[in-house]
Structures are given as structure tokens and as C-alpha cells.
């Protein structure tokens, strides 16, 4: 531990956008369930980071559930995780976001059983004038979202710093700092909101990639991003932010990766690329959207199908890729069909020739697939004959 660390007055772990209970309809049931479960698993790892860094508080800046009325599995599961011994002395602040807004019937409502399950050190930001005094007089302000969308500037509800107030002032909001044209903003947050409200750090949540949106020289306004990715187009997801404050209220930010799954997109245009991809060793915890555009001779076509099957896995064995979203366009090269079927019987050759002719017509895809089936049947017959 160096001298600078000794000056740390306050340590916070900032996270957001857990989206517990989120579905992944583009995936199969099993894969979807893997990703959904991973969203609760990562909370445990976040608590581990807080524990490891000696955090004084855990700030969870909204969208913790994917829906304002999640099923019992999720709120009960979260309450269980937050009640674990490692989190027992850690003040945890849960902020309703626009996905799980604070409404009379939401999971955050005072009468909801979830609230009853939460231990005392877990605080729900359920008032617009919420404030909490942290270690050494540092104070946290939070304003919850009360609807899925709004044009209200929630930061305006945080009191401004009074003259002579030297406390570390932390703000926690959920909303969008984008001001792009045609971009739908909700709960807008000015990028210099921290400066305007006299805050030393504004912990926000909404977008799923890590970003510090504050202007240079201003107090940080930080999106930690989702701790587990939710889409392929997210930039730099899978982190939490650890914020160390010195006694002079200067924050230092550390980005810590907590995601189990890495989402990746790949486009393969040849058999060599496919073979090379299949040899990668880092695919186990990857969710890959794989686009395959290959034109192959029948034997290569069969090999491609086999390799893709190995990547995807079967009912009998796991695939090489943790999860695979396959966009497959295998085209059969029928240029040398005669040679490929040379050893087959007259009828089989005749059938192959007929299919090849049809593959040159409008129903190319079907005819090619049929030709490939025929090829496989002939190969199987040859194999059995050889055996």
C-alpha cells in the first residue's frame, strides 16, 4: 500500500443496470437461461469486489431489475445475495431506474415482500429528497425514477452545495446524458450536473458500457455499465467502478471487470477461417454471434457442418463455444458434382445430376441442400460398404 492510498477517505463501489430477470428471446431456452442466471451470479462477484476493496458503500444506480414487477425468483434471489455475510456491514443503496421505476405496485413499493426481506444495511432510494450520511460525514443524495420515461431533470432535486459545506457529496441518478438528435432521451442528466449541484461524484446508470461523461476538469459523472453484457453492440460492458476519494474530495476511479460472459461477433468467409476459429481456446465463456458465409464443395460442406456442430454442441456434448448465435449461409459448390458422385450407382449419379440441374434454377437453396443430403447418404453407404 503506497502513501497515496493512505489518503483515501472514502471508497465506493458503483454499479448499475443489473437487469435481473431479463429475457433473451433471440436465444434458445437453455442459453437464454444461462445468461439470465448470470445476471444474479454477477451480483455476488460485485459484493466480492466491494469486500476486497474495503468499500464503504455500494451504489446501485438503477435498472437493477429488468421489470418493475419481477417474478419472485429474482427479488427473493437478490435479497438472498444481499443478505450474505460478506455484505453484512456494507451499506448498499438500491436506486429504482426507468426499467424498474418506483411505483405503488413495483418491487420497490414499501409493502412489497421484497422490502421486508432486505437486511437493514440495504437502503432503497424511495424518496426524492433521499440523503444518507456515509463515513466521515460524506453524504449521498439519490433521486429515484418514478416512471419508465420522463423529461424531468432529476438532478435538479439534489440540493446544491451550501457555502462552507466541505463534505464529500455524492449523487446517484438514473438517466440519459445523450443529447443527440433523434435519440430518445429519458430522465435527462446534464453532463455537468455534478458541477451544477456541487457534487464530487455523480453515480449514474442507464447505458451499458463504461463511460465518464463529465467535461474535462469537472467532477466525474460515470456510467459503470452493465456488469454482464446484454447486447452485442455495447461498448465496454461488464465492469463495476470503484471510486476512491481523498480527503481533499478528489476522486480516483478504478474500473474492475466482473462479467462472466464476453459477447463477441465474428464473420467467417472461408473454410480456413472456420477451422482457425474452431481452434480457439477462449470460447468457453464467450457468447458468439457467428456469421458464416462459405461456399464449399460437398466434402467441405460436410466438414463445415461438422465444425459448426462442434462449436454449437449437441444434446450429447457441450459445444466449444459457451453460447452460439449462428447465422449460417453455407453454399454448396456444385461445379464438380460428377466427380464427387463418380463412385455412386447409376441411379444415384442420375439423381445427383438432376439435383445439380435444379440447383441452377430458382430453387437453388433447396436443391443444393438436397444434393448435400444425397452426398451424405452416398458417403454413408460407401462407409458401410467399406466397413
Amino acid at each position, binding site marked *: 500500500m503506497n502513501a497515496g492510498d493512505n489518503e483515501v477517505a472514502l471508497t465506493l463501489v458503483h454499479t448499475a443496470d443489473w437487469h435481473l430477470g431479463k429475457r433473451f*428471446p*433471440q436465444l434458445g431456452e437453455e442459453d437464454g437461461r444461462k445468461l439470465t442466471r448470470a445476471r444474479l451470479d454477477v451480483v455476488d462477484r460485485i459484493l466480492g469486489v466491494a469486500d476486497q476493496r474495503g468499500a464503504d458503500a455500494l451504489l446501485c444506480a438503477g435498472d437493477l431489475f429488468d421489470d418493475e414487477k419481477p417474478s419472485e425468483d429474482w427479488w427473493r434471489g437478490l435479497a438472498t445475495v444481499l443478505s450474505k455475510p460478506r455484505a453484512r456491514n456494507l451499506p448498499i443503496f438500491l436506486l429504482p431506474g426507468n426499467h424498474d421505476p418506483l411505483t405503488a405496485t413495483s418491487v420497490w413499493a414499501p409493502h412489497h415482500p421484497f422490502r421486508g426481506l432486505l437486511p437493514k444495511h440495504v437502503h432503497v432510494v424511495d424518496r426524492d429528497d433521499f440523503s444518507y450520511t456515509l463515513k466521515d460525514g460524506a453524504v449521498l443524495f439519490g433521486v429515484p425514477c418514478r416512471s*419508465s420515461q420522463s423529461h424531468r431533470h432529476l438532478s435538479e432535486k439534489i440540493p446544491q452545495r451550501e457555502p462552507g459545506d466541505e463534505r464529500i457529496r455524492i449523487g446517484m441518478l438514473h438517466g440519459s446524458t445523450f443529447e443527440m438528435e433523434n435519440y430518445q432521451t429519458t430522465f435527462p442528466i446534464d453532463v455537468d450536473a455534478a458541477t451544477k449541484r456541487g457534487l464530487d461524484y455523480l453515480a449514474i446508470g442507464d447505458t451499458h458500457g463504461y463511460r465518464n461523461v463529465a467535461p474535462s476538469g469537472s467532477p466525474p459523472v460515470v456510467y459503470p455499465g452493465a456488469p454482464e453484457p446484454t447486447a452485442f453492440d455495447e461498448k465496454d460492458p461488464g465492469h463495476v467502478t470503484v471510486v476512491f476519494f481523498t480527503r481533499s474530495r478528489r476522486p480516483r476511479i478504478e474500473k474492475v471487470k466482473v462479467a462472466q460472459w464476453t459477447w463477441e461477433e465474428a464473420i467467417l468467409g472461408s473454410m480456413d477461417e472456420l477451422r482457425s476459429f474452431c481452434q480457439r481456446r477462449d470460447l468457453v465463456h464467450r457468447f458468439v454471434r457467428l456469421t458464416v458465409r462459405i461456399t464449399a464443395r460437398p466434402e467441405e460442406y460436410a466438414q463445415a457442418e461438422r465444425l459448426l456442430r462442434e462449436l454449437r454442441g449437441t444434446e450429447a456434448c457441450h459445444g466449444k463455444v459457451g453460447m452460439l448465435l449462428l447465422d449460417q449461409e453455407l453454399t454448396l459448390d456444385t461445379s464438380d458434382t460428377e466427380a464427387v458422385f463418380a463412385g455412386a450407382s447409376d441411379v444415384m449419379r442420375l439423381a445427383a445430376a438432376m439435383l445439380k440441374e435444379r440447383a441452377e434454377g430458382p430453387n437453388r437453396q433447396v436443391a443444393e441442400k438436397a444434393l448435400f443430403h444425397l452426398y451424405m*447418404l452416398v458417403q454413408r453407404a460407401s462407409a458401410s460398404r467399406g466397413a
Partner: protein
Amino acid sequence: MRFTKIGVENFRTIEQCEVELAPGLNVLYGPNDHGKSTLAHAIRTALLLPYSSSEASELVPWAGDHVPTVALTFEDDTGRQYRVRKTFGSGSRGTATLHWSNHGSDWVQEKSNKEVEPRLREILGWGIPAPEGRGGPRGLPESFLTTALLAEQTKVEAILEQSLEQDRDDSGRLKLSTALKALAQDHHLRIALEVAQSETDKYFGAKGSRKTGAKSPFTAAAANIKALEDEVQELREAIARSAQVEAAIENLRSQRDALQERQHEALEARADASARRDKTVAIEKAQQAVAEARSVVEALQERRCRVTDKEEEFAGFEGTVGQFELELAAAREASRVAENQVRAAEEGLRAVSGGQAALTRRLRRAQIEKDVATIDSERAAAQTRFGMAEAALRKAGELAALEQSIGASERTLVGKREQLVSTQAGLQDLIIRRQALSDLAEFGRLQDARAAVARAEKEAEELRVAGERAEALRVEAAAELGRAGTRDLPSQSTVDAIAKLERELGRAEAALGGGVAVVLRPTRSLTIEGRIDGKPVAARSGAEEARFEASRSVDLRISDLVDVEVVAGDAAAREALAELQKRWFSEAAPVLEDADCADADGLRAARAGLDAALRSVAEKESEAGRLEARAAGLAGCLEKLSEERVELDRCSERVAGRDLTKAAAEHQRVVGKWAAVVERELEVIDSGREELQRRIVDEERATAKLEADLGALRAERTRLIEDLRSASESLGGAPDQLHSWLKTDIEAHDRRRSEAVDMIRALEQETTEAESVSKAALQVAVATAAQQASAVAHLGERIAGARAARDQARGELVVLRTQSEQDRPEEAERALRELQSVLAGLPAPAPVAFDHDVCRAEEACTRLGDEARHIEHELVVAQAQLEAQQGTVAREKLAELELALAREKDARVALEVEAESWKLLRDTLVEAESRGEQHLGRALVGTVAQHFGELTAGRYPGLELGPHLETEGIRAVGHVRSVDCLSTGTRDQLATVLRLAIATSTRSTIVLDDQLVQSDPERLRWFLGALAKAAETTQVIVLTSRKADYEAFDPQVAEKVRYIDLGQTLKRFGASRPSVVAARPQDAIRRLQNGSAPEELQETEIATSKAMAVERAAGS
């Protein structure tokens, strides 16, 4: 198909011939020109030539007037046997019959004469169309298959020049296609087709449409897509709602911005208007000051003018006053004259009102008024009596109306009473009919009860008989089972195995055949006993030479010295026999011993007998069971009978003492339907009775009411009569007479009164007219006096006015002169000029503005402020609405769902491609297979080319057969050459190879008429092998003059070959009659045992067969 027998009589050179044919290879041999080809032709004729064909004339033998006759018995692929018999003669001598049989016995004629040929050709399926009658092709029809199977000796190569295309009927092609399809079946194609079909079946139904059931993959895909589309639609709607609110907010914001701009403009406009108004006010004030100054100047000028005018006016008033005083004096004189005239007129009027004439008029009037009072008194008395008479008359009218009502009510009452009597009579009828129906019902029930008792008695009797029959059957079955014995017979499979072992044993013993001869030459007297071919021989003693001959074995015991066993045959045959015997004694003999049977046939018969007995017992047991089950119902039936009897007794008791004669007659009429009739009629009667009873009650009630009403009317009539009588007494006469008299009296009083009133009016008018004349004169005088007085007064007023005006003008003139003396007009004009100068120096507003302009600007500001507050309020509301929407979250979810939907649709496309590809593959394989089948040459050429290659020692390895099995040529050194380039012998051999291939592929009998005469020994040997192989599945009939060529078979093959010496069996004209020879006695035995010998079987054949059977039995 195979031939079993051919019989020919009087056919060309053949006088008579009859040949039994074996299933495999039949070699019919005989010397040249003995009739072999004629026999072959007879086969063709039997199968192909219509009995009425003109070509039949060529069949007639030269010797004598005979009727050629052919008869062929054959068996089709299903085992059914056919026998065709044709006689070729003119007219009625020509006949044809076709019989069929399932087992070679019980022949049934199926067709005769002209119907034979079409049916025969249908059975054969050789590509020969049905005869076309007169004008059609004549003679023996030809097709590819007739050429292949029955080619004439001289047309060996014809098959090489023929093709299926030349057939006039498709049956030959169909037969060959079917046969070659099986031959050419590609195993891999089969598997591929099965896989493709199996995969296709996953996706498509039997009719080729996609499966839509719950298990269909398409259904699951469609359901997923539908669910996602629904979710997407919901989200899109939510987003649209949100977008709508956002657009509204945006619109409100735009409005607010525009309003704020307008507010700003309005404020500016208000300030501008205020400034302009201030300028305008200043100018106005200046202008007002100028105007005031100017008015001062002008007032001064005016005052000066007014002094002058007033002086003139005062002078005018002075003149006017003098004039008026003159006129006043004249008016006062005229007024005095008018007053005098008035006094004179008043005197005249007083004279008219108070004179003698006026007094007379008043007296006259008093008299008349007294008369009027008298008349009024008398009229009032008459009026009272008239009222009484009128009331009496009204009561008389009421009495008359009452009389009419009473009469009508009495008539109605009479009608009602009649109607009530009628209804009561109808009810009585119904009650009587109901009783009749009750009798009918009781009688019907009685009859039904009697019938039910009879039925129950009959049923009970039947059940009793069934029980007795069941008991008898049980006894019979037990007896039959006892007769069948308790032998433990083996199963049918064991019996078959033993029979098979017996046949094998017989064959093994036959294989030892060759003959054994043992000669014993004792040196001393010895006793010899033993068995020859297993059969014991009589013991002999002595020292003479003894010779024992056997076909297989000799076992001898010589005087307890030695046992000698001599067995024929080679070691292998002996070992095989020993093995079989061992098996026989270990496996078969114990079974036969247990079954107490001598051989397999006995065992089979015993087994069959036992099976038949068991079947019979089972049938009887079954029948007995069925009957017992039926008889089990006897108790119930008796119980039912008892119940029916009780019911009958009840019915009898109910009808006891009742006269049911009519009911019986009616029952006779509606027998069987009485219940329905009774029920239907009772329903009608009950319904009618209720109706009638209800009507009677109603009618009685109506009659009573009528009677009450009539009583009331009568009482009223009495009261009225009494009233009329008292009225007559009061009036003192009849009311109707008094009424008219009083009416006339009243009218007379009225007339008198009217005349008196008129007289009074005339008196009043006279007085009035005299007074009016006097008053008019007075009025004129008064008016004149008043006019003159008014003129005097008027002139007095005018004089006073003129004097006042003159005095006022004088006063004003004094005042004006005083003021004018104080005016300073120069100062006023100077002040005016100064003010005009100030006014000219003020800035002019553009445009001018006034307070109302400023007010309008102020109002605009206020209005815009209100609008701004309104829009702000709407914005707040819209914001709240926006917050109630799910827009942002919905957009995020929508993006994910759209991706998922796209993936599902891609998956569905992939699924469809997969499904369609399997379907396409299946269809393509079927089509490819079909195309391959159409090329029959491809299916057959392999076999033919292989055999031809073997035959020619590889010299001609390639052969080309066309799609219609036409021989296209020989492929050699990469070229196809015509078969003409082959030698005659090779062509013959190629033709025979091709014909054999066709025959074996179609499993049809082939007739080879001396077709291998051109073959060298080497190729002939190959052919023998080929024939033997073909004969394993196909009947082959060889006609040859060289029997020796066909004797070089392997022993096993040779044993199956049937050699038939046509020299013995075929009688030419001029030769002695041969006997029928069955070359294989076992066949005859078998047929005898099966009891299927055709009726044509000659006695000799039967005798031979029996002899062989005996021999065989002895051998075993």
C-alpha cells in the same frame, strides 16, 4: 409360371402324346423328325392360337379326318392351376375351354370358346392383345416374350432382332418391368429412399402437404413466430402511444416557444402604443389649448356681434307689442256677442226636457214596464211545470229503453241456458267414450299379458331344450376326446421335421444305389439268415451256394459264426446314410414309437386326425358353451314367466264382471296398436273433458250473472213506473200532453214580453232625439263663445310675451354692452398665436395612438399570458402522460424482440429449406429410379453380358441392350458392333443366353427346341451349367434329338432332371399307342397322396405310381 402337362392328339404328325412335366429341367428327347418341334408347336398353339383360327387347318394331320386337339395344364405364379384345351375344327368341332383349380383337383370351368383367348392372354401377360375378331392379325400372335420363351427352332435368333417396342400390348413390358425392377433394385438407393422418405415424413403428410399438427416442427416454428410477433406488436403499439405523447409534447413546446415570441412582441407593441399615446395626448392638449384660445378670440368677436344683434332685436320687440294691443281690443268685442248666443240656446234646451210631451212618455213607459213584470211571473210558473213534464218524459224514455234491455237480456239468458245444456251433453259423451277406452285398455292389457305368458313359456321351453342340447354336446365331445385317445403326438413342426428326415434318409439310401451281390459258397452246411436292403429274408440251411442281391445292403448271419454286412455306395454316401440313420433312430424313431406310427406319413395322418378330433371337440365344446350360456337364462325366464302369469291374473281380476264385448271388437280392429290408440284418444278426451268442464263452469257463471242483471233491470223498471205515475198526478195530466202545451204557453209569454220591451225602446228614442237637437244648438253657441274667448286670451298672452321679450332683450343688451366694454381681443389673439406655435413644435406620433390602442396592446399581452399558462398546464399533463408510457424501455425490448423475430424467421426458412430439400431428394430419387426402370436394358444387360462373357471366355465382355431390350450390339474395344458380325453359332448362343435371362427374370417356362446344336462341347458344358442353374428357379423344357448332350450334369443336378423319351410317349400316326410315363414316380406318389391326381390320369399311370409307392415303402 410352369407347365405341368401337355396332351396332344391328332396334331399334324402326332396321333397322340401326353407328357407330365417336372418343375425344373425337362429334357424331351427323340429321334429326328419324330415330332419334337410339332410338340413345341402344340404348346404354342395351346397357349396362343385361337381355336377358330384359319391357320388351324394346317394342324390337321394328313392321315384321315381328325380334329387336332391340344391340352396344356400350367400353374401361375400364385400356385393356381389352369387347364386349357382346344380342338381345332371347322364349325362346332372347334372348341376351347379353360378350367382352373387351386390344388389340381375340383376343376372349375372359367371360360369357354371365344372367351378363352382373352382370359388366357391376360393370365400369361406376354404382351399379346386380345383377339380382334374378324380382320385382326391372323395366325399365331407374336410378342417379345413369346419369342423369348417359345421361339421356334428355326427362329433362334429372332429375339436378337426384336424389342418390347414392337409389342401391341403393354402387359409384356409390365411383366418385364416388374421382374427387372426387383432384379435391378439398388440397395443404396433403397436406403437413400427410405432415409429421404423418413425425413420427408417428419415434415409432410401423406398427401404431400406440410404437417400442421401439434408435433409438426412447422407448428412450433409458427407458434414461436406468432408469440414474438404479438409481443413486437404490443411493444410497437406502446411505442406508438409514447411517440404520440412525445409528439404532443414537442408540439406544445413549439407552441410555447411561438407564444413566448408573440408575448415578447405584444409587450413591445404595448410599450410602443403607450409612447405614441403619450405623444398624441400632448398634441391633443396643445391643440385643445389652441382651440380654447381661438374660441376665446371668437367669443369676443361673437359678443360684439351679439350686442349689435340685440339692439336690433329690442327695436323689433317694441313694434310687435303695439300691433298686438290693437288686435286684442277687436277680439274682446267678438267674444261678448258669442256669450249672448249661448244664453239663447240654453233656454231652448230647457224647454225640450221639461214639457207635457215628456210627462206622457214617462206614464206610458211605466204602464208597459208593469205589463212586462206580469208576463215574467206567468212565464216562470209555466217554466216550472214544463220542467216537471220534461223530467217525466225523460223517465218514460228511460222506461222504454229499460224494457228493451230486459227483453234482450231475457233472450240472451235463454240462449245461454241452451248452450249450457248442450255442453253438458258433450261432456257426458266424453265420459262414456273414456269408459269404453278404459275397457279397451283393460282388454288389451289382458290380451298382452296372455301373449307374454305364451312367449315366456315358449322361451323357457327353448332354453330347456338348449340346455339339454349343450349337455348332449358335452357328452359327445368327451366321447370324441376319448376316441381321439391320449396319445402324446408331436407338434406339426416335429412331424414336418420327421417327414423331412425321412425324405433325406430315402435320398441317402437311394444314393447308395448301385447294386450289391453277395455269393456264399459254404464248405459245410450252414444256416444263413439276414436282411436284404433292410428287409428280412427267409433263413436257409445247407451247403449249397447262396446268392443274395440287393440294391443297397446285405446283412447276413451265418450259423453263429459270423455276421456279414455288405453295403453299396461310396464311403461318403454311406457315412451320410449312417448319420441320417443315427439321427432317425435318435430323433424320429422314439417319436414314432411313442405315437405308435410306422412312418412319417402315419404320424402326419395321426397328427391330422388328432387335430381334426380336437378341432371337432373344441367346436362342440364351444357350441355347448354357447348353448349353456343361453340355457343359463332359463331360471330368469321362468321367473319372468311367473311374473307374467301374476300379471295375467291381475288383468283377469280387473276385468272380471265387466262387459268387454265392445272392447274386444274394438281390440280386434286395432290389435297391436291398442295402447297407442287408447293413449292418443285418452289424451284427446282428457283434454276435451277439461275444456268442456271449464266451459260449463264459465257458462253457468255467465247465466247466473245474466239472471242477476235481469232482476236489477226489472226493479229499475218498477221504480220508473212509480215515478211516472206520481209525476202525472202532480202535473194533473199526462206529461207528454202537458209538455207541448206548456212549451207553447212559454213561447207566447216570450213574444208578449218582447213586444213590451220594444215599446219602451221606442219611447226612449223619441225623448232622445228632441234633446239632441236642442243640445246641438247649444253646443254651437258655446263653441263660438269659447273660440272668441280663446282669441282674446291668446292675444293677451302674445302681448305679454312680446313685452317680456322686449324687457329681456333690453336686459341682455345692457349686460352685453357691459361685457363688451371689458373685453381685450388683442390679448386673446396673441395668446392664440403663441399656443399655435407650441403645437407646431410637438413631435407627431406615427401612427397616432390613443388609450384604447394601449388597452388593446395590454389585452393582447394578457391573452398571450393566459395562453402561455394554458400551454404550460398542457405540457405538465402531457409530461405526466409520457411518464405513464413505456416508450424507452419498450424501444429497447423491441430491438431485442425484432432481432429474435428475425432469427425465428430465419430458422423457419432454414426449416423449410431442410424439409423441402428432403422432399426434393425423395422425389428426385423416385424419378431417377423411374427413369432407370424405363431403360430395361440396363437392368438386364449385366446378367446377360456376364453370362455371354463367361460363355465366350471373355471374348465379348460388353453387350448393349436398349431401353426396350432390343439388342443394340456388342461392345468391344470401345465400339458397339452389330451382332451380325458374330458367327451363327455364337449368335444362337447369345440369343439363348438372353432368352434364359428373360425366362429366369420372369420365372416363366422356356422351351428350347434343339437350340444348342451349334455349340461346341466346351460351350455346351457351360450351357448345361446355365440350364441347371436356371432350372433351380425356372422351368426349362429342352427338345433335343441328342439326349447324350444333356446327360453330362453333375449327379445332384442329374437327379433333378426329368428325361422324357418321346420315342415312347409320342405316337405318330401309324405307330402303336404309347403309355404315359411319369419319369419320376415320386411325383405321382405325391400327387396320389395329396389326392390331387387329375381325372385324366390314366390307369396305367396310377398303377405305375402305386407300384413305385409300394417299392418305396418297402425300401424304407
